């Protein structure tokens, strides 16, 4: 006798009637075969979270175990595509059931019809082991898809190179126990199990994002983790979109976890139109989109972060640098809380389950710079948005996230109100990667990069202290050297930190220009300081308009002509000379 439904409470269903279901086993629930997963076993009861709306389920309906944990299909065809939280292709779902999501449509992630031009890389008699690349095909213009073996054995037969679908056999392997296994383009991996690697490598290179405040002040390393916490309206999603568009990862996994439907549509449209800055091909050619919007079932939202991570690891194992944008992990934590509530588990802080920190840790620790089983280098970088309740960073999700990420880009409501974007607060944000990445910056940009960064941060820090005084007594009372700090910091804030995501030139800025901009701003600061030493008031230099000219550098100097920046030194010299002459 098989399992049948005993009780239904929202997305949580219990089944009775057997003792064979195992923890985290994937199950089909009810007559419509809704997908679910076993999350607890209490005596004869198996507790199941269901990934679809449970309306209409009745006690007595059948429940069938799949015999394996919840797993997703991996293979060519993930790129250029958009999926839900358990990797069902949304375009195929649309074709099957129209513009509104229907239940019980179980469609595999990969297109069964499409033929790929495959090159088979193993020969008869070859011994393969986990990590052996047995075939490859061009998945998109940008990405060569490598099929990495998960098992070991001896190749007994191979098919010639040619066109194959994802399920057609490419080669046959006899395993150590004599079992024959067919190798295809398609693989299956359980989402909650990290994919194995040969080892971790030290973190030593940044993920270049083209966003000035990130690249210079608070960089994130390839294989690192960064969190973007902020109240609503502070620009979390725009920051994520900017990184998805411009960062120099090979593959982007964009995970919309419990967020807005319109945003995913926007992302899909933008990524299919915008060209990749390095190759000119559409960004979608290197992007996998996962959309589990806020009104889609909550259990699938819980699973979606693992799905996203599994896809990221899959491409990492081919030797790519992958960045996963998780927007937002707070929605994931809330899904955990919601399900824990339905399971009547004892709540810890703010109703979140006590295992929240360990789940977060498990997720973030799957990031890293790895030596893959095939001996290649690949990385998974996690950029996760956090949506703290009430914008209060002391809440449990933000606090626990802080423990497992090393770059923290705190978005600030006040900056957003003043439309200062990206609204990353330069006082409360930090990155622990700066020291790890120091050699990389030194090698490419010389010793002074770190010095420039330090000077810029000091200037900003000094300004923020002065602003406390200014708020009380006004800026006019300050002595001239402090006025200069405020003026120079204004140039840094408006001309350097503020970056216009919708401006053609300003949306992405190469590191060379970032460095040159810092140099020129500090050059002005030093020149103005020299004037102060001669007791010439700073207002005179301000009157020349040189400060405002520097603020507009970001728009006026094209990214491909950093040489133009040198001319600004001349302009500064001229302005200073003019002021000096007027004071003779």
């Amino acid at each position, binding site marked *: 006798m098989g399992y049948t439904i005993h*009780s239904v409470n929202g997305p949580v269903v219990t089944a009775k009637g057997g003792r064979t279901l195992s923890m985290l086993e994937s199950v089909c629930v009810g007559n419509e075969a809704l997908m679910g997963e076993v999350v607890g076993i209490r005596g004869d009861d198996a507790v199941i979270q269901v990934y679809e709306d449970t309306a209409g389920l009745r006690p007595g309906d059948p429940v069938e175990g799949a015999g394996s944990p919840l797993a997703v299909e991996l293979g060519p065809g993930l790129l250029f595509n958009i999926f839900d939280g358990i990797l069902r292709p949304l375009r195929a779902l649309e074709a099957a059931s129209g513009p509104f999501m229907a239940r019980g449509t179980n469609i595999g992630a990969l297109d069964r019809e499409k033929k790929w031009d495959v090159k088979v890389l193993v020969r008869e008699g070859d011994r393969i082991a986990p990590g052996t690349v047995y075939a490859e095909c061009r998945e998109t213009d940008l990405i060569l898809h490598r099929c990495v073996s998960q098992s070991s054995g001896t190749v007994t037969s191979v098919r010639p190179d040619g066109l194959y679908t994802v399920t057609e056999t490419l080669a046959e392997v006899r395993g150590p126990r004599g079992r024959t296994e067919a190798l295809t383009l398609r693989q299956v991996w359980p989402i909650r199990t990290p994919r194995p690697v040969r080892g971790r490598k030290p973190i030593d290179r940044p993920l270049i994002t083209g966003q000035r405040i990130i690249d210079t002040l608070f960089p994130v390393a390839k294989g690192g983790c960064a969190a973007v916490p902020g109240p609503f309206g502070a620009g979390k999603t725009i920051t994520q979109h900017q990184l998805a568009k411009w960062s120099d990862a090979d593959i982007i996994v964009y995970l919309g976890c419990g967020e807005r439907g319109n945003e995913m549509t926007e992302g899909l449209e933008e990524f299919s139109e915008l060209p990749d800055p390095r190759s000119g091909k559409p960004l979608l050619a290197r992007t996998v989109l996962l959309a589990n919007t806020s009104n889609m079932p909550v259990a699938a939202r819980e699973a979606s972060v693992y799905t996203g991570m599994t896809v990221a690891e899959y491409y990492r194992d081919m030797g790519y640098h992958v960045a996963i944008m998780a927007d937002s992990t707070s929605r994931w934590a809330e*899904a955990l809380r919601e399900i824990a509530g339905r399971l009547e588990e004892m709540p810890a802080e703010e109703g979140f389950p006590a295992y929240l920190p360990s789940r977060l840790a498990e997720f973030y620790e799957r990031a890293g710079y790895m030596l893959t089983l095939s001996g290649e280098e690949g990385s998974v970088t996690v950029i996760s948005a956090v949506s703290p309740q009430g914008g209060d960073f002391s809440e449990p999700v933000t606090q626990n996230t802080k423990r497992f990420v090393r770059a923290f880009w705190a978005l600030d409501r006040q900056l957003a109100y003043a439309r200062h974007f990206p609204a990353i607060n330069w006082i409360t944000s930090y990155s622990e990667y700066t020291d790890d990445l120091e050699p990389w910056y030194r090698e490419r940009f010389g010793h002074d990069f770190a010095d420039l960064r330090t000077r810029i941060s000091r200037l900003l820090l000094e300004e923020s202290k002065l602003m406390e005084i200014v708020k009380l007594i006004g800026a006019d009372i300050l002595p001239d050297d402090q006025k200069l700090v405020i003026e120079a910091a204004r140039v840094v804030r408006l001309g350097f930190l503020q970056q216009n995501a919708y401006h053609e030139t300003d949306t992405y800025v190469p590191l060379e220009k970032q460095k040159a901009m810092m140099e020129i701003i500090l050059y002005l600061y030093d020149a103005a300081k020299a004037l102060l030493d001669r007791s010439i008031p700073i207002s005179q230099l301000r009157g020349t308009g040189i400060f405002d000219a520097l603020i507009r550098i970001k728009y006026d100097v094209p990214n491909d002509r950093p040489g133009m920046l040198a001319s600004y030194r001349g302009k500064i010299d001229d302005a200073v000379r003019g002021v000096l002459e007027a004071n003779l």
Partner: protein
Amino acid sequence: MRIDYIGLSEINGPLVTLERVSDVGYDEVCEITLSTGKRRMGRVILLEGGRAVVQVFEGTHGISLENVSTRFTGRPMMLPLSREMLGRVFDGAGKPIDGLGSIFPQETRNINGSAINPVSRQYPRSCIYTGISAIDGMSTLIRGQKLPIFSGAGMRHNEVAAQIVKQARVGGDGGEFAIVFAAMGVKNDAAEFFRRDFEDAGALQRVVMFLNLASDPIIERILTPRCALTAAEYLAFTLGFHVLVIMTDMTSYCEALREFSSSKGEIPSRKGYPSYLYSDLASLYERAGMIKDCPGSVTQVPVLTMPNDDITHPIPDLTGYITEGQIVLDRDMDQSKLYPPIAVLPSLSRLMKDGIGKGFTREDHPALSNQLFASYAKVQEARALAGVIGEDELSELDKKYLQFGRLFEENFVKQQPDENRTIDQTLEEGWKALSVLPPDELDRIDAVLLKKYYAQEGAMALRGNI
């Protein structure tokens, strides 16, 4: 054949429990008949073996363990739909209450709806002009958007919502408008205010009203927005209307949900609200949008009163995380009789960026609104400083900012409840206010636009001042 179950085993608040039922599905609707012959509707919210917990929409008063019989209908809660709904008034559960009899349905739909597939969505790009400068100019409403009004008890949010409804015009290619109005736990006066207002504007024939007043049962309140949105989806995606959905007051809705959750014995999360409040609100708000190859659209303007004017309270907080921006009303502005009392800085429209500017409203709109935001933020700093050291001690520049702030509030934000401004008038008022600031303070506007609009309008304003 359907079985009648006689009697109950437990009654707790709006929930009743039946034992030994069979063949009943989760979320199924049932009819409960009292011995007096009165009928009530209910819905299955928990099944455990043969035990079913049912929430009774009209409340459990007068129900005893013995005096009822229950019949399950075998389907979820459905709403009959037809074009005739326009101009009609329904209760919170979708039953007509205007005395004109029931409607002849073209089709019936599950009120819970289902999620729109993200690939089927059309990204909203064309704006709706409301004729209110603070909205059109600074937080433009876009067709298919969900833009809530965050208010507080006693502020004039109803007037703002009514003005939006009366003046709303579709930019671009036009199309027919319909309005779906859902009242949840509002006072009779407020519902009457809206009805009269729609009548005065001659719009009553385009309005579908769902009324769950403050004294009506709370379980019905949980159904009200779902019925309203089902009607809206039908009008928009089947009949092709541009539907504007006004839902007021979301705070009452959330409180009803909390009451229901606690009577069900669920583990509470923040401020006693159920842990699924976010998912529940999302299942409502996400029903706004446009679908590819469908002419209509569903635009939502939910109104919520922030308890104690606290924007970090779970209701406005979770709402803000789901909706595409918010219009925030300000107590001080309201007290000083400045109408509309829209606090410009915390207000935001996320979809605005793609629906304004060249080809949509006017080329200078994005830069101008950006500059107004930035400059108005500085006004707040100057005011704080003036509060400490006095206005006379301020620098010349700070004084100019104060002047800009006054002009902006008095001429740009302030307008009459029946004043319908065009987008050109709105932008002109913005440039006029900016003209008191020196050009080098306008760092958000590029030189070309500055030359074209600032000089021209600035000179005009100067002439006007002298």
